């Protein structure tokens, strides 16, 4: 195996493939001393800072437009307090009373010099007259998440459509990527043929090729084929394999003992049978990694849909839809943030299910050098 790896110019990965775990080299549990406490707290604070935009997104997505434009409003979703009195909705204010206490009273009869208030705790007691300008008073805020923001986004941008498009693109393209990359990786990992080393190097070097240098003719080709305005320019290339996933799969395939191939060969299995009955069943973790990579890629699709689907908004995926939504409703951040949250929810959930396979895949491609 080591010899073959050198043949194609990539350094061998010592036991990196199958068992590449992000192991923590730590001597057993030690008592939590001052240094550990400090270091752990510091790291967690750093993490909180790192994830704080997510918290802000959640908070903004649940706010009302009124709250966002009100200066001094709390950072959590809230509404100024109100009180129902004789069929009217009254605003509640924090009223400092002559006896030094402050009480929450509902404004019943606003006036310039003095105003009438109702005590929500004892509405039957009648109007309390208070001297001073009510405009200077502050309002108490009550926790009031605007769940309706999500429903609003759902209908305003035809969110179900965008979501369905993205899922379909991820599924079809994912199948194309997995099938083509598995075949190509199997070819590079298990068969000797003239020029293999150079071809593999050529494959890897495409990573360094700037997209701009192929874009213009590729666009012309798709125009000539009549594919602009369809998903084909986004999907068809996925069926022709890509360097990252082929590399990842090949590295993994090479760690699968050849003895297993040989045993199947004795049973009369051909190359395709060996791939399907020996290699693929062993390689599930890395195939899952490729699937998740493609899912992330599909959710990120922006540029290709932008140029190829400009005339077909019904075919747009989420990322492009989200940016178009921002162009239209940029002045209503609660909707933008709600749409942002709705866009990321599926990848985030899938990540937590597949994170081990995913992160291991990154480590394998990353050790390429």
């Amino acid at each position, binding site marked *: 195996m080591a010899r073959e790896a050198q043949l194609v110019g990539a*350094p061998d990965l010592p036991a990196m493939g199958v068992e*590449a775990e*992000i192991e923590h080299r730590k001597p057993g549990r*030690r008592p939590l001393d001052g240094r*550990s406490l400090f270091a*752990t707290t*510091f*790291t967690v604070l750093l*993490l909180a800072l*790192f*994830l*704080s*935009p*997510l918290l*802000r997104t959640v908070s903004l997505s649940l706010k009302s437009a009124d709250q966002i434009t009100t200066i001094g409003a709390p950072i959590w979703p809230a509404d100024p307090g109100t009180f129902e009195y004789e069929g009217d909705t009254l605003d509640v204010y924090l009223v400092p009373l002559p006896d030094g206490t402050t009480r929450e009273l509902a404004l019943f009869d606003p006036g310039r010099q003095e105003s009438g208030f109702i005590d929500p705790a004892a509405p039957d007691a009648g109007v309390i007259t208070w001297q001073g300008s009510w405009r200077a008073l502050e309002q108490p805020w009550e926790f009031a998440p605007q769940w309706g923001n999500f429903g609003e986004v759902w209908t305003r941008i035809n969110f179900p459509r965008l979501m369905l498009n993205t899922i379909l693109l991820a599924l079809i393209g994912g199948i194309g990527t997995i099938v*083509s990359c598995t075949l190509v990786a*199997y*070819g*590079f990992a298990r*068969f*000797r*043929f003239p020029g*293999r080393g150079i*071809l593999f190097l050529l494959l890897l070097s*495409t990573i*360094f090729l*700037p997209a*701009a*240098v*192929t*874009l*213009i*003719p590729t666009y012309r*080709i798709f125009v000539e084929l009549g594919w602009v305005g369809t998903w084909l320019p986004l999907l068809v290339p996925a069926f*022709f*394999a890509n360097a990252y996933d*082929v590399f990842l799969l090949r590295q993994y395939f090479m760690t699968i003992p*050849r*003895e297993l191939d*040989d045993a199947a*060969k004795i049973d009369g299995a051909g*190359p395709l049978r060996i791939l399907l009955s020996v290699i693929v069943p062993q390689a599930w973790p890395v195939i899952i990694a490729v699937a998740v990579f493609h899912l*992330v890629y599909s959710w*990120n699709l*922006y*540029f290709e849909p932008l140029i190829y689907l400009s005339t077909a908004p019904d075919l747009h995926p989420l*990322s492009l839809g989200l*940016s178009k939504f921002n162009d239209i409703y940029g002045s209503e*951040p609660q909707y*933008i*943030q709600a749409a*942002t949250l709705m*866009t*990321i929810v599926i*990848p985030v959930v899938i990540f*937590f299910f597949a994170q081990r396979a995913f992160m291991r895949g*990154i480590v394998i491609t*990353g*050790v390429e*050098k």
Partner: protein
Amino acid sequence: MAIVELARDEPPKRNSRFSLAQREAGWGFLFITPWIFGFLTLTLAPVIATFTFTFFNLRLNQQTPVRFVGLDNYAAMLGDARMWDALLVTLRFAAIALPVGLILPFSLALLLNSKYVRGSRYIQTFFFMPYIIPFVAALFAWGSMLNAEQGWLNGMLTWFGIQGPDWLNDPAWVYPGLVVIGLWGIGSAMIINMAGLQNVPTELYDAARVDGAGFWGQLRHVTLPMMSPVIFYSLTLGLVGVLQYFLVPLVLNSGTGRPAGATYFFNIYIYNTFWSFGNMSYGATLAWFLFVVILLTTLILFWSARYWVYYAGENK
């Protein structure tokens, strides 16, 4: 090899016109056909076509007859102040984004790998998680954080008595702002660095300690040399990426280069030349120029690697 030995035991196939090696090669080529086809049609042919375009006067909507213009496009490009500005913008951004993209994941990996941090396995998962968030979503989340009045970042700065800038609308602060927007992408570099750190043999640290090396000494004489392949990998891919940086400014400012042309990156110029001005040939020339710049920097990096990248187990 096992296959050859095994084949000897097999009864010879009578009708086979090809040798075993030829048949193996045939299967190999068959399996890699999808990539070969894709490479020829979607990579090689377009690259050649782009190169050819640079010698003509092609436009998206061709009005004038197509004609061979020789090196006119190249001459125009070298005298194009806008091109140099765009290149300068890109390099200026790279000068900030690249070091951050190297140092931050490395330091984070160092921290998470430290024996003093408890539960780092869980913390690491959460540091990695935003990596999967689509860049448009990350842009809106961080863009909102960077808002001059309402954003939390400036809010936090006021705790320390600092009046934060208007990040994305100030030419002096827009690059740090863009780097901040890209922060959620560090996850993959972080875990690659962690894997690298865990591959450093413990004995080397023990030996360094015996020689009296403290934290910085070990970092300088053990960690950094042993990590140089990972650093090289991150640097190379980071450089290739940053020279093509373009999607975030495209979404943020629709390719206008606001504020004051500070986000008029090289790729934005290519994009505008092609899609807004419809000038295919000039766009191709710019793209080819970018390709050469990337190729040269990559080659220089690979050449320099022999002086600073240490591969364990390699004989010199």
